[in-house]
């Protein structure tokens, strides 16, 4: 009896060892690639941000790169712009995405057609969108000024060249590009809102706004919990239009964090400054995501 048990547990151990060996073999290709292109660069960025070799102090460790970073006016502009950009892209694109989803959720041909129009920018490269919007914003001859002139407004405006409107113009491209993508998730979320709950609320005398506020919106909590972190990641990482439309200008008005990192790393070959900026940006993204998750969770609890 005891002998059988020992044999069985030996068998189990052998099985466990075999599973571990097999898992190692199956995971090896992915792990090797992740080590090479995700984990190692993270370590390298952390190390580079703390190694001072630019000012001729021969690879000493220290926080000098961070000191230089926060003393750099271009970085503070990029940080400030990126906060404005994040808020200015996320709030309108989520609001528009939800509004489109609410109205276009019907299973009719016309709603399907209109949904397709809103989603189409998702399928296009951001640089292609930037190329189109370079014309949309063209002073005098461009799409906006051309039709404003038809409405009687004759003063052409340099939307991308004026520091007062450049960031808003870049924000608009992002909102145009991403709203349809977020709408898809709201459509999926709305499909999961049970009709009988809405009917019950209607019978209880709740009007459309109350039904939205107290039934639909709380049930969309998980959708927001998924979409907001994606939108935050996009606000940090999607800068193709800045590269091609404005190069961060005029006068740093559209300089964003990743563009700043790109400039330091590639154009100025200042890896210490680029690394420090990367650490600050990723830490900021993680903090913002955690904060959004937490406040979202507490608001869901409150609503339910």
């Amino acid at each position: 009896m005891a002998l059988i048990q020992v044999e069985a547990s030996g068998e189990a151990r052998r099985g466990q060892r075999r599973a571990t060996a097999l898992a190692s073999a199956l995971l090896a290709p992915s792990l090797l690639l992740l080590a090479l292109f995700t984990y190692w660069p993270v370590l390298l960025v952390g190390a580079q941000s703390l190694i001072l070799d630019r000012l001729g102090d021969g690879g000493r460790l220290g926080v000098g790169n961070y000191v230089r970073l926060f003393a750099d006016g271009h970085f503070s502009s990029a940080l400030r712009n990126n906060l404005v950009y994040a808020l200015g892209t996320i709030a309108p694109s989520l609001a528009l995405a939800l509004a489109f989803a609410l109205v276009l959720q019907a299973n009719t041909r016309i709603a399907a057609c209109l949904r397709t129009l809103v989603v189409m920018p998702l399928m296009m490269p951001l640089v292609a969108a930037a190329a189109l919007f370079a014309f949309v914003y063209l002073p005098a001859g461009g799409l906006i000024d051309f039709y404003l002139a038809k409405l009687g407004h004759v003063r052409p405006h340099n939307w991308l060249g004026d520091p007062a409107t450049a960031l808003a113009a870049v924000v608009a491209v992002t909102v145009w590009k991403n709203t349809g993508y977020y709408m898809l998730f709201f459509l999926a979320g709305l499909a999961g809102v049970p009709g009988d709950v809405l009917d019950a609320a209607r019978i209880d005398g709740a009007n459309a706004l109350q039904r939205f506020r107290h039934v639909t919106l709380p049930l969309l909590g998980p959708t927001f919990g998924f979409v907001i972190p994606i939108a935050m990641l996009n606000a940090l990482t999607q800068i193709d239009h800045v590269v091609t439309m404005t190069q961060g200008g005029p006068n740093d008005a559209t300089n964003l964090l990743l563009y700043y990192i790109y400039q330091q790393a590639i154009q100025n070959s200042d890896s210490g400054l680029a690394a420090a900026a990367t650490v600050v940006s990723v830490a900021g993204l993680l903090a913002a995501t955690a904060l959004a998750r937490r406040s979202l969770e507490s608001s869901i609890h409150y609503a339910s």
Partner: protein
Amino acid sequence: MRVDRLNLGLIVAAAGALLWATPFAWMLVASLREGLPIDIASLTPSGPFSLGNFRSAWESGPFLVWYLNTILMCGGIVAVQIASASLAGYAFARLDFPGRDKLFTAFLAQLLLIPPLLIEPNLVTLVHLRLYDNLLGVMAPYFASAFGVFLMRQTFRSIPIDYEEAAKLDGAGPLAIIFLILAPMARPAMAAFAIISVTAHWNEFLWPLIVLSSPSHQVLTVGLASFASGVEAGSDWGVLAAGTLLVAGPLLVVFIFFHRQIVASFVTSGLK
């Protein structure tokens, strides 16, 4: 009353959606205009129309090379991603080994740390691997996909284990089980993943811009950017519209034909 409000909402949404489509409409109309019309911004011009802008665009850049490079890049990335993600997804779905959940979390870190954020160190790595200015260098950081692993793990978990047990009794090894038994059943998930991945990489700009330097190695997005700056300098907006359509067109056409499946794929990327 209710019906009225619904119609009002639909009218506002329709106006919004049409506004959304305006840049596309302009691209289509302007790409077909002839010469350099003053009212190139007009969405309702009277003509004349021709395909001349497409010819000019095609001749002002090696579009054929850009297409081939882009197709090669997307195809290569997706093929390796699906293979590596199937192996890892099977390990996470079916095998019991110490540290499994921690390792899975470590995989998911890649969802956040995408290559553009790690431009500089990844570029250094590529130079060491002699992959700078090489299409393989653009592809390499994407070969492992945390999202792919996540998706394959979910998919394999949803397949009853009986199929594998039967195959094991017949003497099938793990690779045969993954690629001959499970993969065919996971085809819808793989297709969804391929759609998302191809869209992302067809449209990607910053990373290929940094890695590639020779004109003959460029992909469509980087080619478009250099092409566009040249055309904009000459104010040849019809050619710009045609060139943009050449770059964005293929995915847009695919989208219009496979609308339902593509939308469903993007929604699966939101699976928790």
